[in-house]
């Protein structure tokens, strides 16, 4: 018995020692990552308990869109508390060594929690993203209908429909085989940007999602610059139609997170229930709002916020597109 207790206290000593050694920004992130994954580390234990409580709250009857604001604030609050807990541990470790805690601890507090958030998000993601999907289900359906209509257009017709300026049409990219007509070709223009945007749902980390968006934008500018033979930065009047083109052409390559990611069977049922048959990026509305709510607040007003807003406006615009009005499908 006593040996067991000794072993644990020795481990805590070791943990505190490690804390002191990993204070630099570069090693801190990977240290926190490991600590949060460990079942022995106090941070890992804390995260495990929070995750279990969160899952119990927001699965089953808790999977209700009205609970989204709470769930979302809760995850952010956890990231803040875990960071505070880490700082407390660090202070303890430093005190034990007879060293004064670093002075600049307080102003970096906000920054610290935005470092923690992406690390803890995977554990909360299934329930949280489910709530986002439920919240934006109706808009996502309208968006899907718009995408379906746009997907019927060949490339040239779509460029025309979206009012993309003629000098930005990548006609050279439309390579033809002998029995093809240029006017019928599909999925050939702005391919590099489209392929980039498709990756949006392959990660749960808001930082990585925003980075994918930035790369998509850069690919668009690269294509435009190639066409014009000069460095070209897209003004909004060009960017919006082009982004619209890319959003209409993007496809969900695979469903990620994979279905088994959603542990609870009931979730799988709900997910299969909607979004089926949609081309385009699935649940784009849910995606956009999740990114906006969980991104690092220092992004607000900046380039990445701007690009996310541009994507959101494409999403809104596509919902309004009705080329072939059907009979009234909304009876209520």
């Amino acid at each position, binding site marked *: 018995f006593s040996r067991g207790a000794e072993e644990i206290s020795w481990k805590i000593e070791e943990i505190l020692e490690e804390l002191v050694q990993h204070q630099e920004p570069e090693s801190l992130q990977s240290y926190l990552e490991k600590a949060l994954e460990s079942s022995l580390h106090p941070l890992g234990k804390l995260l495990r308990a929070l995750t279990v409580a969160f899952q119990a709250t927001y699965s089953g009857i808790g999977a209700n869109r*009205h609970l989204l604001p709470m769930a979302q604030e809760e995850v*952010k609050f956890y990231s803040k508390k875990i960071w505070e807990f880490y700082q407390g541990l660090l202070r303890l470790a430093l005190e034990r060594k007879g060293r004064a805690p670093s002075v600049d601890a307080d102003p970096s507090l906000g920054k610290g929690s935005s470092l923690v958030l992406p690390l803890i998000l995977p554990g909360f993601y299934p329930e949280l993203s489910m709530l986002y999907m439920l919240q934006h289900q109706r808009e996502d359906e309208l968006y899907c209908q718009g995408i379906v209509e746009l997907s019927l257009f060949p490339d040239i017709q779509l460029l025309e429909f979206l009012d993309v300026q003629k000098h930005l049409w990548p006609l050279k990219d439309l390579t033809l085989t002998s029995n093809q007509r240029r006017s019928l070709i599909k999925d050939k223009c702005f391919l590099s940007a489209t392929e980039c945007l498709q990756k949006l749902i392959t990660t749960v980390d808001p930082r990585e999602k925003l980075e994918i968006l930035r790369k998509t934008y850069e690919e668009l500018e690269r294509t435009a610059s190639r066409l014009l033979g000069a460095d*070209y*930065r897209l003004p909004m009047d060009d960017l919006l139609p082009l982004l619209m083109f890319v959003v209409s052409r993007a496809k969900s390559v695979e469903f990620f997170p994979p279905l088994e990611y959603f542990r609870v069977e009931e979730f799988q049922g709900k997910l299969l229930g909607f979004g089926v048959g949609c081309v385009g990026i699935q649940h784009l509305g849910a995606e956009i709002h999740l990114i906006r709510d969980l991104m690092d607040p220092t992004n*607000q*007003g900046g380039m990445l916020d*701007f690009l996310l807003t541009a994507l959101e406006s494409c999403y*809104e615009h596509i919902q309004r597109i009705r080329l072939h009005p059907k009979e009234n499908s909304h009876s209520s």
Partner: protein
Amino acid sequence: MATGAGAAAGGRSFSFKVVLLGEGCVGKTSLVLRYCENKFNDKHITTLQASFLTKKLNIGGKRVNLAIWDTAGQERFHALGPIYYRDSNGAILVYDITDEDSFQKVKNWVKELRKMLGNEICLCIVGNKIDLEKERHVSVQEAEMYAESVGAKHYHTSAKQNKGIEELFLDLCKRMIETAQVDERARGNGSSQSGIARRGVQIIDDEPQVQSSGGCCSSG
């Protein structure tokens, strides 16, 4: 509304979001490019463009980070405006002094901005292309009176001759700082961050929360 303002209030540093509005050919991008990068190109179709630009300023020891968001001028994107305006601290509404229609458009945007954002947002109405004074179609008096009537400031600029642009942005920044400071004082000393934290605190006890919000579930 202005959550972008005074992000680091303690350090006398401000981050402002400014939206840029105006019809296609009024020269709104030229104006901002001239200011942020001191570049100008006279050709009709020019590769000199941008949709997002930033500028750092220092006004009386206060550091200002300015983020300028371009908007699409086409009518069919009009409904998307509010997505761009939200949380902006300022708006620059540009018209071409030789084009009466472009001034009418500015009036429409002013109405919309005031409706969406109230008086929180600092409005600048800008008559661009004063190098074409001979072809003027919007009278100075009319424009200035209109601006005053809606609580906006009016400026005369020429992106081509680099006239009036520095003043425009400097003035706008000063007004935004003032608004942000008034806003801060009104909210007490708490920064915007503590506001978020306070909301978060309500959620600490997850069990009572689930109970209390049970009522709202039935409303949907």
